């Protein structure tokens, strides 16, 4: 069953209006926090909820907040990561577009929890409509006195700023995001120091995903125990899964963590397009390893998906049917990582280009026997040898398609044509 917690109100066209949001109990959590709670109380409640980061890494949110040094004389900053760029992922956009006040309220409470007086939301540059929805919501919240100076007479100040980026995937990585927010090229920083100690403008900073922060006001309203009662013991709560590719009903579905993959694809997704056979699933955005149909009963939670050999990642579930040429899939994704490599680390900058060139050679029918080993060697020379995880992510589609579909690579090289012809290529 779908479990609409974050999505409870997204079908109401008036939800982005503050009056509608308030009429459904919105901003009550924020008022409760301001009047009755201390920052540590908020952190304790979020820790109790077990909420883990929804951007990809799954790091416990409360723990992250706890790393901000309380005795630091520097200003502290909260940054909401709305750079949503992981292929297969389009959930944060829906929250920003259809329930922007849920994001605003979550950001406000989280900023309070780390004693920040500035909160930024970094939205990828292409998301013009979501950014406008957020700006409108923030303006409304200022007018109601929920943001700004001396909020509701409590003495607490909070400025909230919408920041739009320049369309770089790498800026979803928190240190690249911070550089970008400082007006610099989006290249990553070596950690430590971690952003919680030295982040934006070298001050303590917490960066959390849009979906992560959207949960916060609901956790304050209903309690950490309520949140922890959903999902599994280690993966609490719900999660928005973006179902795309060869399914009958693609879309964003909110499920309790631990719901089987089969349920998402077959019950909610209506099964495979044209009733074809399922060939492969990428379960958590393009940077996560492929799962084969024998893993369809895997519960969608951090631990179970890891046990099945992949990662829950960003929640982008990409489905591929029998007529999918897996070498072509690797090539499409190799192009992406080549384009998005920020150029800072040589193995990633050069390696992603070599991988793409090699795959182009193979798919042109000019592949040679040793090319599969060359690809694996390139992957080995990128993985773990770069500052940020983009390099690690770039090798995943290559290693994973070779692992499961080596025969397709061999066929391409031997017969100079694909083993499986893409039969979905034409949208005509």
């Amino acid at each position: 069953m779908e479990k609409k917690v974050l999505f409870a109100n997204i079908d109401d066209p008036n939800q982005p209006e503050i009056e509608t949001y308030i009429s459904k109990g919105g901003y009550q959590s924020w008022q409760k926090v301001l009047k009755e709670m201390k920052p540590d109380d908020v952190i304790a409640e979020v820790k109790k909820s077990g909420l883990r980061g929804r951007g990809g890494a799954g790091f416990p949110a409360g723990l992250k907040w706890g790393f901000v040094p309380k005795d630091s004389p520097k200003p502290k900053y909260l940054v909401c990561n709305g750079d949503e760029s992981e292929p297969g992922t389009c959930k944060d956009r829906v929250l920003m577009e259809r329930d922007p006040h849920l994001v605003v309220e979550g950001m406000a409470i989280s900023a309070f929890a780390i004693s920040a007086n500035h909160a930024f939301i970094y939205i990828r540059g292409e998301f013009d409509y979501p950014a406008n929805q957020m700006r409108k919501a923030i303006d409304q919240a200022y007018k109601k006195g929920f943001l700004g100076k001396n909020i509701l007479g409590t003495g607490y100040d909070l400025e909230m700023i919408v920041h739009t980026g320049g369309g770089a995937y790498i800026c979803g990585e928190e240190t690249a995001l911070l550089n970008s927010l400082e007006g610099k090229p989006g290249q990553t920083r070596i950690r430590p120091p971690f952003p919680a100690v030295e982040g934006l403008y070298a001050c303590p900073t917490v960066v959390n995903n849009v979906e992560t922060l959207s949960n916060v006001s609901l956790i304050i309203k209903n309690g950490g125990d309520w949140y922890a009662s959903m999902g599994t013991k280690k993966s609490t709560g719900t999660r928005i899964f973006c179902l795309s590719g060869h399914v009958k009903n693609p879309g964003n579905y909110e499920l309790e963590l631990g719901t089987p993959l089969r349920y998402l694809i077959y019950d909610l997704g209506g099964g495979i397009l044209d009733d074809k056979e399922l060939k492969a699933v990428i379960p958590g955005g393009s940077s996560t390893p492929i799962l084969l149909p024998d893993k369809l009963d895997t519960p969608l939670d951090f631990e179970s998906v890891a046990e099945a050999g992949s990662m829950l990642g960003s929640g982008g579930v990409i489905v591929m049917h029998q007529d999918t040429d897996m070498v072509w899939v690797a090539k499409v994704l190799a192009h992406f990582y080549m384009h998005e490599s920020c150029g800072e680390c040589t193995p990633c900058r050069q390696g992603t280009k070599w991988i793409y060139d090699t795959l182009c050679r193979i798919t042109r029918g000019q592949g040679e026997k040793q090319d599969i080993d060359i690809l694996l060697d390139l992957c080995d020379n990128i993985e773990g040898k770069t500052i940020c995880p983009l390099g690690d992510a770039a090798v995943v589609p290559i290693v994973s398609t070779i692992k499961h579909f080596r025969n397709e690579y061999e066929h391409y090289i031997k017969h100079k044509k694909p083993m499986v012809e893409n039969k979905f290529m034409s949208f005509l």
Partner: protein
Amino acid sequence: MVLNEESVKAMREVAARYPHRKSAILPCLTIAYRQVGNLFDDIYGEISETIGVSKNEVASAASFYTMFPKHKVGKYLIQVCINISCSLMGAESLKEHLLKKLNVEEGEITEDGLFTVVGVECLGSCTTAPMMQINQTYYENLTPDKVDTILEDLRKKG
């Protein structure tokens, strides 16, 4: 001046909101390319003077982010998502259809100056594939008929 009064005013406003002015560089680049259509050296100088940061810093940021066009494009920049979810749903043929229909090569400007078509990486619209972005607007769940109507409407608008 390349930048008009409205852009300059918007840039000053945005710069005033940040604790550090340098943070306003990306929003200013956005304001500039939306007014002009593409970015070039003179614009970096004007942004630098408007918000009080060095021209090199502006140029450095501009050169990194591929979303900001550095060369001339048509009045309507059509960006077709060619990443995996869209490709699985026929993005390659969508791009070909557009290029054929407009009789241009990728990246070129149509003779009437109206259109440029390029393939771009994931635009975060995976569940509504295939899709394209024209200037700031997303067009999703595309079919050939829908695409043809969109092009006609834009042509009429000029």
